[in-house]
């Protein structure tokens, strides 16, 4: 297990190297650049700016310089917001996005798994139909529709919750609406997933054995069904985490949450090379870490998997 973990950590290095290299050249391949929108810039000033950001150097040299910086976890200055460094922007926005993402994911997992189990146990009865109808809505209604509807109902009509902004303005209440909105499609998917896998396990031979041993139905469910039935949900958590972080771009815009999503989209529009690179690196690290954690949890849950 420890050796597997160390090997996976080491494999991070080449993976990240490839991601950094590819994205570095890909962004620069696209026409235009960070300063292309500032029209009527005198040639001398433009040259000056380029020189300041070392962008007058040949591309390979820029690349090597950038690699050196990234290894020291220095993403350089933002090309758009000239008074702020990229590190600063990541440091202020990443915790917000992470808090929102993790809250939403926890909500989605806890509610999704429970609803899925109840649905499976009450298969084809009204709790099942209700839950699965809600799930279909959750999967098919996009976040930018769900968000404003919740805002309208809970913030404007009922005035229970703030319509937007973040902890500093409204305290913990502020996290509820964006987190619920963000979690909805994932809750729906996890509910359907766990319903299907509980149903499958319930029909398996070893559950028939457990019942034939005279165990109580509650013991059969908790002790014999759940461990196997939760494996597909665990597998889904890796992609879900990355999805929930990128999905928060929309939710952050709807609820004016000061997270990583807005700077990311703006950086892409503005060709803010250093900011784009930093975002790509942060998201990749998140995804890789999430997948590693999923693999480890998988190994703990399923004795048939052993890591050597």
């Amino acid at each position, binding site marked *: 297990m420890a050796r597997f973990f160390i090997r996976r950590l080491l494999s991070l290095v080449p993976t990240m190297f490839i991601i950094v290299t590819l994205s570095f050249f890909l962004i620069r391949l696209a026409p235009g650049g960070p300063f292309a929108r500032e029209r009527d810039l005198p040639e001398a000033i433009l040259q000056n700016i380029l020189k300041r950001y070392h962008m007058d150097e040949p591309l390979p040299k820029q690349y090597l310089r950038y690699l050196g910086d990234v290894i020291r976890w220095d993403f350089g200055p933002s090309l758009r917001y000239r008074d702020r460094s990229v590190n600063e922007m990541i440091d202020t926005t990443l915790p917000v996005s992470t808090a929102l993402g993790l809250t939403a994911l926890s909500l989605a997992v806890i509610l999704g798994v429970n609803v899925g189990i109840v649905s499976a146990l009450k298969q084809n009865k009204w709790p099942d139909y209700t839950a699965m109808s809600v799930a279909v809505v959750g999967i098919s209604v996009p976040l930018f529709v769900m968000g404003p509807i919740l805002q309208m109902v809970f913030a404007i009509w009922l005035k229970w919750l703030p319509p937007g902004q973040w902890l500093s303005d409204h305290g913990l209440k502020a996290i509820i609406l964006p987190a619920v909105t963000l979690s909805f499609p994932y809750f729906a998917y996890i509910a359907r997933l766990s319903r299907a896998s509980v149903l499958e396990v319930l029909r398996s031979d070893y559950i028939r054995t457990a019942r*034939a*041993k*005279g*165990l109580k139905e509650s013991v059969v469910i908790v002790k014999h069904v759940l461990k196997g039935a939760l494996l597909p949900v665990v597998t889904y958590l890796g992609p879900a985490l990355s999805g929930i972080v990128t999905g928060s771009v929309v939710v952050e815009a709807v609820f004016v949450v000061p997270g990583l999503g807005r700077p990311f989209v703006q950086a892409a529009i503005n060709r803010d090379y250093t900011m784009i690179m930093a975002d790509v690196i942060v998201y990749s690290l998140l995804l890789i870490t999430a997948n590693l954690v999923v693999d480890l949890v998988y190994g703990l849950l399923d004795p048939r998997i052993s890591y050597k």
Partner: protein
Amino acid sequence: MTDDVILQVKDLKTYFKLDEGLLKAVDGVSFDLRKGETLGIVGESGSGKSVTNLAVMKLIPVPPGRIAGGEVLFQGKDLLKMPDDEIRTIRGNKISMIFQDPMTSLNPFLRISTQMIETIVLHQGMNKKDAKDKSIEMLKLAGIPSPEKRIDSYPHQFSGGMRQRVMIAMALSCNPEVLIADEPTTALDVTIQAQILELIKDLTARLGTAVILITHSLGVVAGMCDNINVMYAGRIVERGTADEIFGDPKHPYTQGLIKSVPRLDKATQQRLFSIKGQPPNVINLPDCCPFYPRCDRALDICKIKYPATAELSKGRNVACWLYSEGK
């Protein structure tokens, strides 16, 4: 004679409601099981053997399944009318089961020790330590080498034959009155089959457990059983002692089954006999003899009405118009 009957199945009916219609998987099955007896139930796939025995334990999935009638008397009490918490004290304790596929019948996520101990703690009221000692003892009886080391393994660390030994040890751990073995050797290769059958025979004889052995293999029942019930399309078509069934089969279906066993002692160049046609689809079956389309000796009445069971001698029955009055 009836005093030592411990399990009595009377006119058991189990139906499944499907989109295509009503499937009468078991349609009026009756049999008695005596103390220490080994009873074989033989039939093709889909003849209702497994469903019969799941119904005895009330383990039929409801819906789509439904126990449509009959009684299952165990020590004088009807299992089918028992509330769930009462029948649970019988399952795994007084009547236990082993299943066809040992590869899937043990929970792959739990240690063998966990799965064995929970049954013993539940029914025998032992503490976990005693239950573990008892489990180790049972595994040893079932022929698992160094059980004290292997008991904490997971099922995937055992071979198929070893897993079936574990299942047998588990099923017998509460010293049941009845063991229902549902095709216990079908998923195993031939050399292991013989060992597992020997083990079941040996252990149940030692513990005085009555056995219901469900199988489609005549070879298996011949060596193991005192009495044999032959099932076809959800009903018992012939019953008798093993000697009677093999020495003097009455029902054309039983005769066909026995003829279609390959024989090593007769050097012939003939093709192996097989019963022509397919087992009937038991959905919406009319009231005819379900075997008549495949029967060489079918009479006109076979197409109209199911034959009443004729008693040829004590415990020797056959449901065929050839032996019924008024044909």
